[in-house]
């Protein structure tokens, strides 16, 4: 986890005899490395950039040859059209409610269970932990048919709690927080707390929870983005009249309109929240992935 907070300083090595060899040995980037990296950067950003360009142009711009590659002045007119022609406001509200609830819940329950797995002793702890690690590898989407049958049975099909409830906990979250607590809190601290007569719930609240903040933040970022982008299950269980942003995009692209400027404007709007999170917390996200925050 330290990688999230302070990336390791570059190691300086003594120079070799020849310039090229020295550069090779010191791993200093040459002009070709920069050129390649800039190309990768451009390739990464281009589709999102282009979507933004189309969103800011008049509807005929998308069919122009040669293609339009610079933003125009029609962004807000197009955004207004999206909200006028579809119930995109409802989709955004639903997505915010779903991603927000799921994030708070996953972070809380993962911290609670992760603390117990890392710092409390109980019978069957290792077996249960192994179960969590094993279930991480299983794609739960394969249970989508029974899950749908259950939701119909509960009368939840078409409503957003059908999307929220299955997302309230993740195996990955528990495992991630457990790994963090292992290293972040010395056992002596908890022992001292016990001596003073602290109940384990008080230890959790006053010792573990404050110490968990950096890891909980990373977990929260990943969970939010994943919940916001989730597609398959909402597509199956929701109805077009009560969509999330992703299913609304799918409906919009599926022949509701042939106005692709409208569709791409909606796609741009739907990308803005995760993009904002990314621009604000990019360092933490990069650090999280590099420290093993798997989100397969």
């Amino acid at each position, binding site marked *: 986890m330290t*990688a999230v907070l302070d990336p390791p300083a570059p190691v300086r090595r003594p120079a*070799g005899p020849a310039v090229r*060899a020295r550069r*090779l*040995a*010191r*791993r200093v*980037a040459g002009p070709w*490395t*920069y050129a*390649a*990296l800039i190309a*990768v*950067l451009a390739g*990464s*950003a281009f589709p*999102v950039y*282009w979507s933004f360009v*189309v969103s800011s142009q008049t509807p005929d711009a998308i069919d122009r040859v040669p293609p339009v590659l610079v933003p125009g002045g029609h962004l807000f007119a197009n955004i207004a059209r999206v909200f006028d022609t579809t119930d995109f406001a409802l989709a955004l509200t639903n997505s915010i409610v779903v991603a927000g609830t799921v994030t708070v819940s996953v972070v809380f*329950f*993962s911290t*609670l*269970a992760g*603390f117990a*797995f890392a710092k*409390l*002793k*109980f019978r069957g*702890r290792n077996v*249960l932990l192994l179960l969590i690690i094993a279930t991480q*590898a299983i*794609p739960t989407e*394969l*249970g*989508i*048919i*029974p*899950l749908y049958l259950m939701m119909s049975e509960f009368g939840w099909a078409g409503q957003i709690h059908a999307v929220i*409830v*299955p997302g309230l*906990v993740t195996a990955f979250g528990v495992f991630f927080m457990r790994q963090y607590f292992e290293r972040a809190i010395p056992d002596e601290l908890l022992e001292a707390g016990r001596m003073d007569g602290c*109940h*384990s719930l008080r230890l959790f609240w006053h010792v573990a929870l404050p110490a968990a903040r950096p890891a909980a933040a990373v977990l929260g970022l990943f969970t939010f983005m994943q919940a916001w*982008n989730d*597609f398959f299950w909402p597509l*199956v269980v929701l109805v077009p009249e009560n969509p999330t942003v992703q*299913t609304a*995009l*799918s409906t919009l*692209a*599926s*022949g509701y309109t042939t106005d*692709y400027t409208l569709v791409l404007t909606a796609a741009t709007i*739907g*990308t803005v929240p*995760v*993009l904002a999170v990314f621009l604000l917390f990019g*360092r933490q996200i990069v650090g999280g*992935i*590099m420290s093993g925050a798997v989100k397969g």
Partner: protein
Amino acid sequence: MAVTDKAARRHRWDTRFAPYGYVAPYFLLFGVFGLFPLLYTIWVSLQHRNLLDEGGASLVWFDNYARLLADPYFWNAMGNTMSLWLLTTVPQILFALGIAALLNRKVRTRTLFRMGVILPNITSVAAVTIIFAQLFGRDFGLINWVLDLFGGGHVDWQAGTATSHVAIAVMVVWRWTGYHALIFLASMQAISPSLYEAATLDGASGWQQFWRITVPLLRPQIIFSTIIATTGNMRLLAEPLLFNPGAAAATGGSDRQFQTAALYLYEQGFTNYDFGYSSAIAVVLAIATVIVAGLGYLVTKRIQTE
């Protein structure tokens, strides 16, 4: 006396039973909404269960599986799944290794570049597929326009099996390469610089050092990434579904040329409401994924240290 007794009992209760309370919410929710549906899929796959039939569910044992083995659409979907697995997984790992090697040099503004490679991974699959579907458009798509500049013809990307697979693979590779690159980069940074120094003194080029030092030492991460990528790439659904959105989206093209197994599962389950048959597809796909992931493991395991 009574006070300490009570305190001791409370302490014992706290150390013995309270931990179960802390892990219970996870197991309760996961059990009901994760594990149970997964296992119940096997049971549903042994039933004739179609929402459109009046009769309800009836146990038919392995009839769905027998039907599956004789279903050309299913084999077509499995073939597409395998083709897409190969076209996505191999480039993902290779490009990720290359990008990680670039990022592993001493680069200025490295946070910018690292954020840049991970940007595709945080964007939504629905939005990205819709964007790429336009870029791959036949008449006004930007990619065809660029190909034109280099003298290439206008490709109807959706029409052919090979071209549609390439287009879908581009979307997947674009989205996931940066993620694997960061995983590889983290391990590359742990490699001792003295190894490269010694190799440089021995006259090894950067290319040789990459293949003989970096890649062998990254073996555990390459195995990990291959397995993670496989489980993802064997169940592609959003990309083929939204590549050609519309009333017949679930068929994956007019000739089912890019219908994946996951998309066929979706078609059988949620346009035909044939839940028994759809569950059988889910079970077979799960088994196929395990086999292919095992294959990927066997291949990447062979990476040797000199």
